[in-house]
């Protein structure tokens, strides 16, 4: 039982850190685009 709770807590913590990582990487991308390090991103 305690292992199950610990496992679920681990999944929850991972979700939270992915959230913050996405925010940090998005801000980094914005800075890169804003200061002109990357001009056009092709699609």
């Amino acid at each position: 039982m305690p292992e199950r709770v610990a496992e679920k807590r681990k999944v929850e913590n991972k979700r939270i850190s992915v959230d913050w990582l996405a925010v940090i990487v998005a801000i980094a991308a914005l800075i890169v685009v804003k200061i002109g390090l990357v001009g056009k991103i092709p699609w």
Partner: protein
Amino acid sequence: MQEKKSVLKGVFEYIPGLAILLVIGLCGKYLERGFESILNESSKVLAKDMYILFAIIVGIIVGNLVRFPAVFRKGIATYEFFLKFGVILIGARLAVQELFTLGVVGIVLVLLEILASVFIVRLVSRRFGLSEKLSSLISIGVGICGVSAIVGCAPAIDADEKDSSYAIAIILIFGAMALVLYPAIGKLLDMTDRSFGMWAGLAVDNTAEAVATGHIYSEAAGKYATMTKLMRNALMGITILGFALYYARKGMAKAVTHKGRFLWEKFPKFVLGFVFFSILASIRLENGFVFLAKEQAGALKNLCKWAFMLTFAGVGLSTSIRDMGKTGFKPFAVGLTTELGVGLFTLLLIYGLGFTGIL
């Protein structure tokens, strides 16, 4: 030195899976190009950003035919990161004024949708004799945020693994169906981008599928679908807290001691990034200064497309038809009835607002 090596090893562990996401995503992108002329002719039924749908389809086919070794798993699981990253970038396309104007209407719609989901699931679950906890997981999955809400709620109400996997399978089955059915219904009903986007954001359960459904309809609809879906996500903490308190009072789960901390833990932090980007993108000064010039906004838009390409390749790869088949008749029937009920209810809400001129 040892630490540096282990960090490098950690990074390399993601590369095989990421390479698979890239290959499948590119298949989706080039299939879209290949089918462009055909799609233009049939654009009455299917419309924009079809790379998303193609990436999901190719992903589902490959993922269900090929059993990938463990070395690919970490990289494939990064699709969740790319989804959140892409969603934050969409914030840069939404003016903050629009976010707040539509936000007021949206929050009322979301609250009504959550109440309707809980009510319908409870009603149908009793008919089919489903356990109370399974019905709570299905209602939170349908009402709020699909898989994340179920994963977040399961420990709070002490639900067992089997119930969680049933509820998750239901969300994934109907999410996959929504990708094709909702845009087709929207086109048949000739819905505006805003109405369709808000409908998809309200009625499609999982964030990935809601964002994809909106984008398949049109780019603008994708923006509104994302915004509405994020409102549902933002209410995840409050709803889970409600369920946790209900079960604790009945002695079926542990009591919640720090409610404020509980709410903050369950709040999806990437929503803050979305709002932050929307605020930045709305900065326009009287002297003509804009925070994001046209080319910069264009670069972020394309970056978002790349992120979604990888996301939906991962969504497809992680959709196991075999697991879906294990759902069982009763949970499936409850899921089907609830999805139909919520889909119809939210469509009527959107139409009602359309008639009153609010939307």
